């Protein structure tokens, strides 16, 4: 079953709610509609289901205009779950059985076969044994799963879900998305209007970003979700982080007051040894730089996030002479340099050489948290180099102690 929405325009009263919406959804696809309140997400779903008639454009189901079908025929092809859950004392099994309505002829009651399908649907959402419970007495998560069982019992090939995770706790949100995801993998298509961007990026293969009745971005989550598209669609500032192959969106870190704006501090780090220093120094209002770092190193992510200057090298590559020079130049310009508790191998020995320059200039602070021998993988010569650095710098037991004296040290100078 392929769903195609083509140049659809929908008016409610005098206002145009949808303006020229076009997209296609195939089976095995789980598509999220993302957009602010009132952007037209629900209207898109209602138009696909045929509740609202477009004034222009067509919705095609496998090439056939949806307007050719009556509601019963549409309900056999499309399972639509409205946003608000009903309030009713009906028994759970009666609600799930309602999903069979499009399959039973008028004036007839559901058969034993329908009952079996309903009970199976209930089982598939993990609510076996709930059939005789009153719907009104269930928890929010259970209610939503009953409603999911209802559209599963409908056995349609396209699912339209209007904010199925609203008002649910996190475990129920994930359960609901997993249930839909599993169904999609069995060969149906799902279109989900949703507000939770992280749930959408975690479970959906494709995202349609909707604003003012128009689709303004389409693509895989990692293609369309970034701070600028979120700003464009939702008009808010966020950070987009990557976690493995997942991406997630968090509110942007609060703007930092650059009251120490003339002071620059350079952190020599790597492998995560500088993360705390970079964030804290940034919060304290300093301009932070770091280097030399391999791209995608966690310290590199940290310095990118605080928008600091960075001297970087390709992932897993040793530090080149050019990067070393660049690093030294940054060090020259800095008011203070901190050598983090980094591990040293042949690839980044040049970072220690740079640190020595800083030490000779009298502006190096060293975090010497763990014995150097345990983090030195570049031979005895490096051990000597490190000792030479320590001799010319102020040494601290951990990051907290360094950070405590930074203000003071800079004032002295």
């Amino acid at each position, binding site marked *: 079953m392929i769903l195609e929405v083509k140049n659809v325009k929908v008016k409610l009263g005098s206002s145009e709610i949808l303006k020229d919406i076009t997209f296609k959804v195939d089976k095995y696809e789980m598509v999220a509609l993302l957009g602010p309140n009132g952007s037209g997400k629900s209207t898109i779903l209602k138009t696909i289901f045929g509740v609202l008639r477009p004034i222009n454009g067509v919705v095609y189901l496998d090439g056939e205009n949806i307007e050719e079908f009556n*509601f019963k025929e549409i309900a056999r092809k499309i399972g639509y779950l409205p946003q608000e859950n009903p309030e009713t004392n009906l028994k759970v099994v009666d609600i799930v059985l309602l999903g069979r*309505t499009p399959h*039973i002829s008028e004036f007839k009651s559901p058969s034993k076969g329908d009952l079996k399908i309903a009970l199976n649907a209930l089982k598939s959402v993990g609510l076996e044994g709930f059939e005789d419970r009153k719907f009104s007495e269930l928890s929010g998560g259970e209610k939503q799963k009953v409603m999911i069982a*209802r559209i599963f019992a409908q056995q349609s090939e396209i699912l339209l879900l209007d904010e199925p995770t609203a008002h649910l706790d996190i475990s129920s949100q994930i359960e609901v998305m997993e249930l839909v995801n599993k169904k999609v993998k069995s060969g149906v298509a799902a279109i989900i209007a949703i507000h939770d961007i992280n749930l959408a990026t975690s479970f959906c293969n494709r995202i349609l970003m909707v604003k003012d009745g128009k689709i303004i971005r389409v693509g895989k989550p990692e293609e369309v979700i970034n701070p600028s598209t979120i700003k464009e669609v939702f008009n808010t500032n966020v950070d987009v982080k990557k976690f493995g192959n997942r991406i997630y969106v968090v509110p942007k870190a609060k703007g930092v007051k650059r009251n120490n704006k003339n002071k620059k501090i350079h952190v020599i780090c790597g492998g995560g040894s500088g993360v705390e220093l970079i964030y804290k120094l940034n919060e304290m209002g300093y301009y932070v730089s770091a280097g030399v770092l391999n791209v995608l190193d966690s310290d590199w992510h940290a310095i990118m996030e605080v928008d600091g200057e960075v001297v970087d090298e390709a992932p897993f590559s040793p530090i080149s002479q050019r990067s070393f020079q660049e690093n030294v130049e940054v060090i020259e310009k800095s008011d203070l340099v901190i050598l983090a508790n980094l591990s040293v191998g042949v690839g980044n020995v040049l970072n220690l050489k740079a640190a020595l320059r800083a030490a000779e200039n009298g502006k190096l602070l060293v975090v010497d948290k763990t014995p150097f021998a345990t983090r030195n993988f570049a031979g005895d010569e490096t051990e000597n180099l490190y000792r030479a650095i320590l001799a010319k710098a102020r040494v601290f037991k951990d990051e907290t102690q360094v950070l405590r004296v930074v203000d003071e040290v800079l004032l002295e100078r």
Partner: protein
Amino acid sequence: MHKLIPTLIMLNVFIFFLCLSLGSSSIGFYDVIDILNGVADDNTKAIILDYRMPRIITSMLVGSALATAGCAMQALFRNPLADPYVLGISSGASVGAAIVILIGIATTLNILFAAFISSLLTAFVVYKLGETKVGLPIYTLLLAGVAMASFLSGVTSLLVYLAGKDMHQVIFWIMGGFWTANWLKAEFIIIPIVASIIYVLINAWNLNAILMGEEHALSVGINVESFKKKIIGSASLLTSSAVAVSGIIGFVGIIIPHAMRLIVGENHRTLIPTTILFGAAFMPLVDLIARTATDGEIPVGIITALLGAPFFIYLLKRAKV
């Protein structure tokens, strides 16, 4: 089928014979047996077959009609306080009956027709007032019904005031009862009531869907706008028929469906049949009290209220809501 249904059918048969056997005259159960054996005298036959029998049948029809209409309205409005009269049907019927009485053409048949036509007309006007461009929003309909009902109550009060010496006739009609029942009335209402009840009965499944809310009903493939019209149409026909022959009998349309709901649950596939049967059993029983409790007749609406409300409270308490 719910296990309560056979019991209710037997209850109906029992009440039918009970009511045939009791009355203000001394004719009793053995006379009923005599009629069945064909050995009863003409006077006995007349009282049982031409007076008690049509009265019982009319009250059974009215009881089931009001109960069914109430049940359907409660599902449609998703409001436990909805009753058969929400669309102003009772006030409409009162105006029709009062006009006929006031202009002095108050034969049984004229009152019946006037009440029937004016109540159906009221329902239609309310429906039209409630209609909007996007369909029939249930709250607009409810408000239109409330507005229409109070307007027509005002008209009725004015007519009662103008009626002068006929005033008591109008008030008695409004109070409701079966003392004027005869075969003609029973025959008049049997077709619309039975047909509408069957329609509601076969749509019991769809009423479950409506109970979930209109969007949910739509999502399982029900053409909600057209279904709403049909249910409102049948409920109006049921109520108008009942009101035309028996005046305004309150409480039945609320109490019977709720009593059944507390016993068998919300599922309309069992709720509708049990409501029909319980309504049919309840009404003649109450009418029996109305015609035997005192020397005269107590208007049946008074008894439904006096009897119904405590029974309802008992059920509420028992269900530990």
